[in-house]
């Protein structure tokens, strides 16, 4: 049997920036030294005291003010997908170094990149490069799992780039088109 001895880790503080639905939230974690699993956190200026345990890999049980929460944190292409209750939110955590690096990458242009939401096959391309499109106009038709799905333009604009052709196999996240 494994040793499940008492917790005795030194107190510590860690600071991060979380990106959730486009917004940046400052996070400060403080672990109390005297109480196993006790975390004091400041999230965007709000204070939380939580007793936490990683009960299964990536699955956290939090007790806060005697309310029990179960939260799953799963890695995704762009950080984490966090599930709490019925909700599921993508959250990216960056530490100071990463934040700097990412800042350098940003701010290129106003084009929206349309990426494949799933792996699949492009069965039809509905537009050409430089075409004008309306919001919700179909760009390409993808097939996966015996279903065809139209990928639509999120806004009115111009097809700046068309990255796929009919018959192409794409992976989730592959660039399909850019609309400006």
């Amino acid at each position, binding site marked *: 049997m494994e040793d499940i001895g008492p917790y005795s880790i030194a107190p510590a503080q860690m600071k991060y920036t979380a990106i959730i639905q486009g917004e940046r939230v400052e996070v400060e974690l403080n672990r109390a030294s005297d109480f196993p699993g006790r*975390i004091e956190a400041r999230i965007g200026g709000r204070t939380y005291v939580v007793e*936490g345990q990683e009960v299964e890999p990536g699955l956290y049980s939090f007790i806060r003010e005697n309310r029990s929460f179960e939260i799953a944190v799963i890695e995704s292409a762009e950080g984490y997908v*966090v599930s*709490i209750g019925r*909700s*599921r*939110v993508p959250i990216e955590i960056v530490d100071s170094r990463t934040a700097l690096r990412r800042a350098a990458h940003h701010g290129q242009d106003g084009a929206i990149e349309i990426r494949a939401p799933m*792996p699949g096959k492009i069965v039809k391309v509905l537009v050409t490069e430089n075409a004008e499109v309306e919001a919700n106009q179909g760009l390409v038709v993808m097939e996966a799992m*015996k279903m065809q*799905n139209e990928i639509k333009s999120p806004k009115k604009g111009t097809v700046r780039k068309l990255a796929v052709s009919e018959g192409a196999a794409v992976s989730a996240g592959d660039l399909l088109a850019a609309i400006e």
Partner: protein
Amino acid sequence: MFSKILIANRGEIAVRVIRACREMGIPTVAVYSEADRGALHVRMADEAYAIGPAPSRESYLVIEKLIDVALRSRADAVHPGYGFLAENSSFAKACVDAGVTFIGPSPESIALMGSKVESRRTVSQYGVEMVPGTLDPVASEEEALRIASSIGYPVMIKASAGGGGKGLRFVKSEPEMSSALRNTRSEALSAFGDDTVYIEKFVERPRHIEIQVLADLHGNAVYLGERECTIQRRHQKVIEECPSPLVDAEMRARMGDAALRVVKAANYHNAGTVEFLVDRDRRFYFLEMNTRLQVEHPVTEMVTGIDLVKQQIRIAAGEKLSFLQQDVVLRGSAIECRIYAEDPENNFFPSPGKIHFLRTPAGPGIRDDSGVYEGWTVPIDYDPLISKLAAWGATRDEALERMKRALREYRVEGIKTNISFFSEILEHPNFKRGEMDTGFIERWLESRDPESRISGVEQDLAVLAAALHYAQQSAPILQAGKPTESPWKTSGRIRSLRRR
């Protein structure tokens, strides 16, 4: 009884059939494509044979390969499940020709019911009411226009070889007829290799209710109540119930009687389903017959106590039905949700990929028929059904409450699913009252408020968990550790160490 059964299918239905066989003491043979080597049905079966590359055209749909495995493994019967070759009369015939029992109806019954035009014509002779329309194929646009104006618009154009919601078109008025006819024909030709079409009157806001039947080789047939399958998306069922909140004992008896006449018309044996469209005046019309086990069979099993897969096997082995119509008693109420790997928040795009975490619901009244496991990568090549979750209750209310409870327990991480989508539908007041028609989901999706259901506290706790997890990757904070360790400080460790 059979000495070994080959299951010509994959996923949850292959697992379901393996379970029935095991309970009957019959060894099972699985087949698998290259994408399915690690699939649950392969792990659970007694034997397993590779049958080719991932695309089903090159594996699960290749009749010769399946017959070859049946012969090599000395299986004396084949269970086709649903989908793939389950309603392919050539496959049934190939089994018969190879001396292997096909666990299903005769090739002739399959062929008859596979042609919607033929089945309508045959069934009409047995006094079963059907949606007004043509009994013969529509030959020309002129004929189509004439028929439509005689039965009245709007109408549906349907492919004779279609079914299950595929190959049909809504025609609101005369000017739409020409292109609708042309499109349905060309679609039907490319999808089914047969451009025969027919016309039916469009029934407004119908319900879809079906009768489960069992018929043996000795002329005995019973019906096992109905299933309400009205909740559909894109003509595909997503929630099914037994019994229907609409149907009372009198209506059930009339529908059951009509279904048994269809059984007779088709000279049918095996489990089967007779589908009806029900209009707002509770009149029902024959739609089609599914000559196989239905995806939604568990709700009937829970309410009648009868194991349909075992019955199929016994019937195919030549046994007589061991019970009569009066022995079939419905108890309580059951509901099934089809758990799909898809993203309801993004137009229901399929969501194949690796299941990083899986917790299935359990406890009283809950049945989970799954074809996946934690760590399995749901392949891109097949339909996105990963599990069928069913709940039984003494009343419909209890069944719904249990289903809601089970949906809350269900946790699938790594791929997206429609689990919370179901939780929302089950809260809908109309659904709770049993008021529904086949347009329920489409209308509801349009009116649905895409509110962010997450509260401020929940969002903050989600952020906290993500930050904690990020920190844990470099140095566990929460894991129980030995007193001497101080992993918090050891931030230099490789992040991927604790991944599995």
